[in-house]
């Protein structure tokens, strides 16, 4: 991976007490880890926690290694979660991270570790993405923590607070023997700002100072009969300890307001949006002072009944602003109130939307109706109504201003991407072979389901695509084609999909897109990269693994040779039985360009011969039917005005950003489209042979045409 953070930024991680640190939320979290004295870190990259892996990986050599911190480039989320086992019996602090859906993969390990309980602080940073800004489903991490009995920290959106909550989280984990889940929502993860530092703590137990004696404590093994005792401890020791800790350390925040009758309970980053809504309603200022009392939960599991009852009692009505379903906070708070026989009226998802991200327009409307229900003054009512309706009305006005809505812009494969050509090949072959059932998977290639390809019938989860078509392979008269990236292959695809397919004699075509990087998350090393994130060489080979798993039909293709890919696909289509695997192997273009740019510059400067290709479209020859676009979708292949005033529609054009992969030319060939494409190669520092050939060439050209093409 190219380093994501500049050196100077990473150097700040060494800062001590009182210095100001500038960075994004993930760097701040890493700094807080160091200030907490962690011994090990790990995780599997995914949005929005991918930045954390970047930060750890970039900091490994310059900072972490010297502190003796172990960094595990975890194979998947289950491996990452399993890492926390180190904290079960020893006073070792550690943290791992993954995106929300990774929790599903990790949950087996999490269940067991939570049952055993931990001695050293163990923290999972989970990328909560309820607004689905990345490939995931709208789910909360909270239910996982509830069923396994982990504490859950949901910090509000403020970097200083974030760092503080990480430090508190480790203490909480140690005080309660529970692993702690720390939710990092997309928007919080991408905050850039500054914090004031504390000194880093060098871990007592580390790679530099390893454990000499290992203990065996059967009580911590999750096997009967010990599991019964472990479960008892969860509810009689750990949860009560957590409640005590939360109260004593004042982890949840209360804003005392003047209004004695009303109150609002909210959580995490929703607090920030809600305060803005109150400010816009004229009910609060920007500095965290509000007329209505607020209880903000930074720890959403366990809740502290005492604290809740204290807040609810003597109030007439309280609104719970909780994002996401199931609304476990609301249900628990209602139960607490009922148990305490409080008369307060509680509102929640009855006046706020059940599903979906809580954006300010939703929140302000909810608060508006809550206030209206509890205000008698007509003047006040009118004011609230006007202000809380303003956003919705304004949005409506803007949305209806144009008759034709602004065209959507979906993400696309990058310029020169090696994953695109195989989808082009499939699309072209559809003309002859018809549509297949396309079982997609998680990775950049998930975008094959979007225009212009529209090649996706299902996305079922990571490494699961091929397996998801198991029944349909036998029960539908359609060919099954599945896609899988190298990262996904090593994450779980090999076991979940491939061994399952061989074992069940599944008839399907699997296309493995090997580009040596986990690119979607921002170019993380994976076993196909040949190195891990600690930059240690590893020799793992997809083809060997496939053979070992009993796959006989394997073909390797060069993605930029469209003819070769189409031939391999046709072969696979014509072979009836069994699993056919095509490995399309080409390095991620972004990463490749990043590397070759430097090399080319150096070669050119030292006078060596360098040929730079770029594709072009002849504007007089292009008729503007845009069929090339419907097979391609390359960002550098775009539109421009036709050179002739006779043609109203735009024609195709290739921008300077073209990297010369040649796919558009290959498409024009393979799909028999048009003769508009050409490849122009610039020969820098031409050799003697080039110059001689040029002379001969010109001589002959002059024979047929007066000046050849050269004038």
């Amino acid at each position, binding site marked *: 991976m190219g380093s994501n953070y500049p050196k100077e930024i990473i150097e700040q991680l060494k800062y001590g007490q009182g210095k100001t640190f500038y960075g994004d939320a993930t760097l701040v979290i890493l700094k807080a880890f160091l200030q907490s004295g962690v011994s090990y870190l790990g995780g599997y990259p995914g949005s929005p926690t991918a930045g954390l892996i970047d930060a750890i990986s970039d900091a490994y050599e310059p900072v972490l290694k010297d502190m003796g911190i172990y960094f595990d480039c975890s194979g998947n989320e289950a491996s990452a979660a399993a890492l926390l086992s180190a904290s079960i019996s020893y006073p070792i602090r550690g943290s791992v991270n993954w995106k929300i859906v990774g929790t599903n993969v990790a949950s087996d390990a999490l269940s067991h570790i939570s049952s055993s309980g931990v001695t050293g602080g163990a923290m999972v940073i989970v990328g909560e993405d309820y607004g689905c800004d990345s490939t995931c489903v709208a789910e909360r991490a909270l239910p996982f923590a509830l069923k396994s009995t982990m504490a859950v920290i949901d910090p509000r*959106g403020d970097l200083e607070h974030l760092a503080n909550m990480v430090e508190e989280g480790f203490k909480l984990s140690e005080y309660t023997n529970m692993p702690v889940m720390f939710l990092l929502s997309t928007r919080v993860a991408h905050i850039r700002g500054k914090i004031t530092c504390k000194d880093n703590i060098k871990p007592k137990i580390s790679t530099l100072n390893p454990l000499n004696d290992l203990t065996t404590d059967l009580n911590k093994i999750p096997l009967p009969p010990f599991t019964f005792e472990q479960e008892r401890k969860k509810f009689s020791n750990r949860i009560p300890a957590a409640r005590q800790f939360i109260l004593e350390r004042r982890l949840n925040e209360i804003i005392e307001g003047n209004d004695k009758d009303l109150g609002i309970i909210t959580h995490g980053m929703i607090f920030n949006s809600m305060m803005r809504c109150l*400010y816009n309603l004229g009910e609060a200022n920007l*500095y965290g002072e509000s007329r209505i009392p607020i209880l903000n939960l930074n720890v959403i599991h366990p809740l502290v009944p005492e604290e809740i009852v204290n807040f609810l009692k003597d109030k007439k009505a309280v609104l719970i602003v909780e994002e996401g379903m199931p609304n476990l906070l609301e249900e628990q708070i209602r139960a607490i109130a009922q148990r305490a026989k409080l008369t307060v009226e509680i509102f929640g998802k009855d006046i706020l939307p059940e599903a979906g991200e809580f954006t300010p*327009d939703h929140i302000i409307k909810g608060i508006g109706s809550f206030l209206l229900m509890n205000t008698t003054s007509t003047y006040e009512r009118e004011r609230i109504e006007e202000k809380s309706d303003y956003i919705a009305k304004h949005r409506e006005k803007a*949305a209806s201003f144009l008759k034709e809505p602004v065209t959507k812009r*979906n993400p696309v494969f990058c310029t020169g991407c090696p994953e695109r050509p195989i989808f082009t090949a499939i699309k072209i072959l559809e003309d002859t072979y018809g549509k297949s059932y396309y079982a997609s998977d998680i990775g950049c290639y998930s975008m094959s389901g979007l225009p212009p390809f529209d090649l996706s019938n299902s996305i079922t989860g990571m490494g699961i695509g091929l397996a998801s078509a198991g029944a349909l392979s036998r029960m539908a008269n359609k060919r099954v084609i599945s896609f899988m990236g190298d990262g996904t292959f090593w994450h779980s695809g090999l076991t979940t999909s491939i061994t399952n397919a061989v074992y069940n004699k599944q008839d399907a075509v699997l296309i493995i897109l090997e580009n040596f990087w986990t690119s979607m998350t921002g170019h993380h090393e994976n076993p196909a990269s040949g190195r891990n994130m600690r930059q240690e060489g590893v020799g793992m080979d997809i083809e060997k693994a496939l053979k070992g798993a009993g796959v006989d039909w394997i073909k390797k293709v060069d993605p930029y040779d469209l003819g070769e890919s189409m031939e391999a696909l046709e072969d696979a289509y014509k072979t009836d039985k069994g699993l056919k695997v095509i490995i399309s192997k080409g390095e991620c273009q972004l990463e490749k360009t990043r590397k070759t740019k430097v090399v080319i510059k150096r070669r050119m400067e030292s006078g060596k011969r360098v040929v730079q290709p770029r594709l072009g479209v002849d504007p007089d020859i292009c*008729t503007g039917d845009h069929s090339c676009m419907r097979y391609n*979708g390359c960002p550098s292949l775009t539109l421009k005005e036709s050179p002739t005033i*006779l043609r109203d*529609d735009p024609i195709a054009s290739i921008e300077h950003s073209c990297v010369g992969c040649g796919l558009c030319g290959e498409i024009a060939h393979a799909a028999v489209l048009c003769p508009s494409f050409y490849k122009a190669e610039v020969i820098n520092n031409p050799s003697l042979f080039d110059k001689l050939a040029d002379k001969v060439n010109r001589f002959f050209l002059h024979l047929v045409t007066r000046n050849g093409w050269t004038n």
Partner: protein
Amino acid sequence: MERRSELLKMLIPAVGGQGGGVLTDWLVQAFLTEGFEVQGIGLPGLSQRGGSTIYYLEAHPKINPNEKQIIFSQYPVPGDVDVILAQEFLELGRVLEQGYGSDKTTIVTSTHRIYSTLEKMPISSGIYSDENLRKLAINFSSRFVGFNALEIAKENGMDELGVNAILLGALGASEALPISEASYLKAIEQTGVAVGNNIKAFRTGWELIRSGKYEEAKAKPQIKWEDFIKERAQRLDSKRAEEYITLISEIESEYPSRLREILAEAVFRLIDYQDVWYARKYMKELKGILDIDKEMKGGFKLIELFAKNLALLMSYEDGIRVAELKIKPERFKRIKEEMRIRDDQMLRVTDYLKPDAEEIYGLLPNLLVAPIVRFTETGLFRSFWPENKKLTVGQKPITTSFSGFLRLWILTKLKFIRPYSYRYHKEYSLIKKYRTNIEKFARLNYELGCLVAKSAQMVKGYGRVRRKTMDAFNRFLDNVIKPLVEFERKTRKGYHLTLDVGEKSLKLISSSTEEINKAERLAQEVMQGKAA
């Protein structure tokens, strides 16, 4: 609790991978230098791959230490954004459509477009209207500063990422934010991304706004009529140029002046394509429609549409035409310029040519080919040569080399047989049908004539693509327009239904030629529905 307005909220809509993150970083740094409390947020994820993406910033002057901390929001609030700094015009439109602009918003935007995949895919133009975007921007802002930053970047020798610093400079000069020039520059230095180039770009943007130059109307400079003719005449040999001038004088005397550029271009194109005889043939075809236009007093919309499309149909792209265009000296000159070739560099051009069977035998005389083609359409032929088995000749000649050049050069010498070729015969029968349909329908209703005249725009492409569009065009005339006209002629006064369904059909076909099926169904359903 009085509302204070010192809080600044800025939204940066962008296209993934175009440097919006760095732009946000600069602003965060600049605010920090000015002593503000600031929060910047980027939202990558899926959007990093050329999709829509949004960055959001909030800043507030530092408050005295005994006050509590500012609580920033991570979400922008619709109708409550002070500055929108947009990297691309469609993305500006998107956030405005979502209600982020209001009468207190200053908009600084680049007006250049990065077309989205959905805009690129239709057969005709799917480009979203710039005019719509501009209207939206003016209506949902207090101040609108829009200029094509990409063009300015290119004029100043920068790549597309230069757009960001140019926009930052423009924002700085617009004084929409309380940040000094020095603080912006310091931020660029601190962020450490291509510092030299970005400072240059920043100054370019700054100057542009300060000098007010961006507001100058960017209307295309009109080429003078004389120059328009001269430029074309120069590209013909002297004999043809003379004849060209004669034809031009005909155009000048017989046609309305607003059509003369179109006709001059068309006539030039056809002389270049075949010869003067061919251009005269074009003028003759035109004459009939011109008379109808005058007769119907339609204002020359019909003749304009017909003139454009007829010229394109008549200069259908066959192998000879392509070969000629591929070896024109102007072509190599253009490529050299585009590639910015220096004298010490060499150029090699490889062409991707793959004519299919019809494009090859189409060049042969009609008398020879027509019977064979009829045979290939029989079941006997299809039994040993299935329809989807394609016969193509793929080749990638290096056109800058002697051998590659020669192959194309020889092809251009076949021009003389073109008017006798199978392809010419086929194309011309379509042209005839096109003309007679216009004649027929324009007499019934002028707008109807215009619709038919316009519809020929769909005929384009090469090989299979062209055959599909020709088929769609034929079916549009025979199965959509014709029956609808018949239907309305008997029962109704106007042709509103035909016009409406016709327009809808054209829109359908413009997304894909397969949609002609839907268009036909639509026509049927409409007639059944209305009849009942």
